């Protein structure tokens, strides 16, 4: 079991979710976040004052997947989120120790899907 965290451009979320659906990955948690990497984002301007170089709006996806789905998930996220420009984001893959379905008390791989 792996826990996959992806930080992507907000406007690519729909495409990433579409790609995941195509690969039978339906479960995901999504949140609005701020982040910063090496890229420069779209600077906002307020009364001619440029708000640049600070944190940029990003979207974070978190998915728990069984081992068979790890490669497909990574590929799907990459395909959906990629523009080729700096700022496309990153994917982090972590080992997942346990997963419990609250309703049934089921544990492990069976509880993920």
């Amino acid at each position: 079991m792996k826990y996959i965290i992806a930080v992507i451009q907000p406007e690519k979320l729909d495409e990433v979710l579409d790609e995941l659906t195509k690969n039978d990955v339906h479960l995901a948690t999504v949140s609005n976040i701020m982040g910063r990497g090496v890229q420069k984002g779209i600077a906002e301007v307020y009364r001619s004052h440029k708000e640049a170089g600070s944190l940029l709006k990003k979207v974070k996806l978190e998915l728990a997947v069984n081992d068979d789905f790890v490669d497909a998930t990574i590929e799907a996220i990459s395909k959906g989120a990629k523009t080729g420009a700096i700022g496309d984001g990153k994917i982090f893959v972590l080992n997942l120790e346990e997963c419990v379905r609250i309703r049934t008390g089921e544990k492990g791989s069976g509880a993920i899907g």
Partner: protein
Amino acid sequence: MLTISRRISVIVSLCLFSYIGLISETFSNETSLETINSGDTAFVLVCAALVLLMTPGLAFFYGGLVRKKNFLSVLIQCYIIIGIVTLQWVFIGYSFSFGSSELITGFIGGFDHFALKNVGMEAKGTIPHSAFMIFQGMFAIITPALIIGAFAERTRFSAMCIFMLLWTTLVYDPVCHWVWGGGFIGAMGALDFAGGTVVHINAGVAALAFALFVGKRKGYPDKISPPHNLPFAILGTGILWFGWFGFNAGSELAADGIAANAFVVTHVAAATAVIAWAILDWIINKKPTVLGVITGAVAGLVAITPASGFVNPMGAIIIGFGSSSICYFFVAYLKPKFGYDDSLDVFGVHGIGGIWGAIATGFLADEAIGGTAGSLAQTMIQIKSVIITIGYAFIMTYILLFIVNLFVKLRVTTEEELIGLDLSDHRESAYTVLE
């Protein structure tokens, strides 16, 4: 001691006020023509301010309904239209709409009031000419602003500005002239008290043409997020409702019985439409919804607009109930079948509600109020005026869109659309994520 000095100050200020009043009365008697009525003038000026307030109200009504990445784009579109149309109105719009000479007889006014020439303190009816001009100018502002709802979230700001200037000049001004400026629809005997054809059908049909021309938003209909801030939409509707009293009652251009009747029927129709939409929602979707209630309010206000100087409160109830029912049916059942993306239902509410109101005026008119009794013949005249307006507004809007699109693309790029217009067109965000 304190109370005595207070009393003295009250007496002194009362004397002062009445003295100032006396001076200003003398002054106004000297400068103005004798037909100007101070009550009517005060009323129309206040109503003009109320009608202006409708556009920021509309901005929040529409803005609350779009996704948060496009919130500011809708607000700025409304505000820039206030700027563009005001200057257009000052230079050419008023002259084209209400000019006494005509460029094309019965069709469009001439240049006699170019840059407000001969529009000043002299009387027009019982109010100063400039009061009449600015009151009508507020109508010219809100009408193109209504169209925004149809093309929200995907239209380039620069192209929209050019389109709005052309549309106001070549669609709003002529239609306004036809109906109110001495043109051929008014001469036909069609009844349009405050703008069923000129404002709502005109804007509603233009909205349909725009939605068809610019295409659906990416992800429509299944992947568009719900309204981002319904409380703003409610607040916006409240401001619209409030401003609508100026719109309808003010259209009498005098503080008299017909203005009072227009005020009453406007309110009664909106209230009825609110209840009607809520009941329909309750029956069909099992719950009354906030968006339904405010949509009903707008549908009722739209439909009563042409009728407000001609129907009695019972007629207003029929118009309000009918408007919610017809608009509900159209928005919930017919629009999805057609498949076009009129994002905020400008055609479904203003177009359809306006058509219903204009036709209903023909058979619900009460002779005791506006001097015209409802009849089949009057209804036929109403239908004729509606068809002419629909045809002209649709064809001209489509031609203007085609021309503007040759020079500046109306639709933003897919990337800009996904990022959202606030950031891509205006470099601003409505909300921050962190403090």
